[in-house]
């Protein structure tokens, strides 16, 4: 049943992409609505919680996507193509900024801002907020892999295709990312158990 749903979704997705190629503005909007939160989330965590910059990069990504959608011929998964655009946009933007700000790749990024009301924060969970801050503080090349894995649920092969690297590199970066999170946030193990995350 789940497979049928996936196939149906894929079929709808193809129809939307075809409509976009014909310049259908409503189809653009549909595609945007379907992917905007994930693209924005990747950009937001990539830039350490800078909401304005994440919004700017998200706009760039979709503009590029819509103006180049004619070049997408379905050789790769659409999401792979989209997240290649996203990661490239993030990296390009960071390069531009580095020229001016002299920040190295290894520089620690700022803390993720606490967003929303205290009530919201409680709802989202302190754990989730702490993880968000820890991911935002990872080195960019580790951060991107983590974001693609956990927001997009891409396979190692898809991440490798999106980043233009090998599957082995993806595995190695995820290993390092997981280890850093575990070491930084080991004290949250108890809250994960309470929240039912314990396997």
């Amino acid at each position, binding site marked *: 049943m789940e497979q049928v749903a996936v196939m149906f979704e894929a079929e709808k997705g193809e129809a939307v992409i075809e409509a976009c190629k014909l310049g259908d*503005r*409503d189809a653009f*909007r549909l595609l945007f609505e*379907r992917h905007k939160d994930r693209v924005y989330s990747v950009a937001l965590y990539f830039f350490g919680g800078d909401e304005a910059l994440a919004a700017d990069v998200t706009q760039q990504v979709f503009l590029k996507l819509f103006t180049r959608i004619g070049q997408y011929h379905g050789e790769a998964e659409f999401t792979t193509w989209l997240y290649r655009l996203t990661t490239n946009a993030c990296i390009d933007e960071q390069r531009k900024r580095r020229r001016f700000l002299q920040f190295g790749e290894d520089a620690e990024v700022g803390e993720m801002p606490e967003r929303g009301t205290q009530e919201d924060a409680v709802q989202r969970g302190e754990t989730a907020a702490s*993880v*968000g801050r820890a991911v935002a503080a990872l080195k960019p090349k580790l951060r991107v892999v983590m974001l693609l*894995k956990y927001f997009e649920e891409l396979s190692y092969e898809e991440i490798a295709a999106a980043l233009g690297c090998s599957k082995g590199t993806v595995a190695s970066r*995820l290993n390092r990312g997981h280890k850093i999170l575990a070491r930084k946030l080991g004290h949250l*193990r108890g809250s994960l158990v309470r929240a039912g995350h314990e396997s």
Partner: protein
Amino acid sequence: MFGTHVKKDLSAYAHGELAPERSQRVCEHLRSCAACREEYEEMKLGIRLAECLPQAEAPAALWDGIEAGLARDAFKGKADETKARRAGFRFPALSWRAGLSFATVLLLAGAGWLYYRATRPAWEVASIEGEASIAGRVGERGRLGVGQWLETGPDARARVEVANIGQVEVEENTRIRLVETRLTEHRLELERGTLHARIYAPPRLFFVDTPSAVAADLGCAYTLEVDDAGRGLLHVTSGWVALEKGERESVVPAGAACLTKPGAGPGTPFFEDAPEEFTDALTRLDFEGGGREALEAVLSSSRPRDTLTLWHLLARVGEADRGRVYERLASLAPPPEGVTRERITSLDADALAAWKEQLEITWSSESFPKLRRTLRKLLK
């Protein structure tokens, strides 16, 4: 031995990304190697933490910037195209001035077309539950353009922003179409299903067409239902709504309802707390040819509050029965000075309006949801 450790494979192993043979080898190794086991536990904790990563919500205003960017790109594309065409084709008879004018006209036409595309009227639609389809395309958000249909299936509900004058919530299994939206009129068609409208605008700016009547907003909130046979039920929760078909009009205040039927138009409005005997007789009178028997049942079971129904009946019954309605109405709420039986039975418009104006004060009410359910049964 160091060569046999599997630390570099642990994330891939946990994510099921290893080939079966490799995965089996890692599994066996973990049983016998405490160091790798310890590292695996750490990796699993890292994975569980990463799985908690909260997804952020993109700001709603992002799309506006993208649309503006698309319009700019399209404009630039048009300009480049025009330039390329000019470069590849000679206009032997055109001077440079004429060519420039021609290019300007093309650019202005392109800009005009882009402006039209960018500003063509459409209403924002957002899903409340499930997914709605607009013009056959399914999604959680979208824009409903003039002439387009919005449809919700089972377990799906959507909210539509009515230009800048209010909202309409569309219930499941509903099909609506945006007929018109301009400064002086906003009009929807409700083919079937249920919508809840809340409008903050001067009267007669928002209309809903149904198969059996048109609901004209008079500054209000209401629910409108249409069944598969095209029959409708209007239930007003705030303000007033007029139901119209041809020359027949029913003015429905808050707390009141009105049935509609194809071919018959709007029935006579009634308060939802009216006795069942009253509403049953009214349905027979309006839609089932109930005649004098039904009229008598309506009159005899009417309460002071039911002057809403009786006033509407004055113009709907035949001349022979109008006197009976006048008498019952006058006994419940005597007419104002100067409004006589003769003037009312001859349907003098001024006299009818004067009496209505006096009665309207007593017609404001709250809604009665339980009775609304009973009314739905009447539709079946």
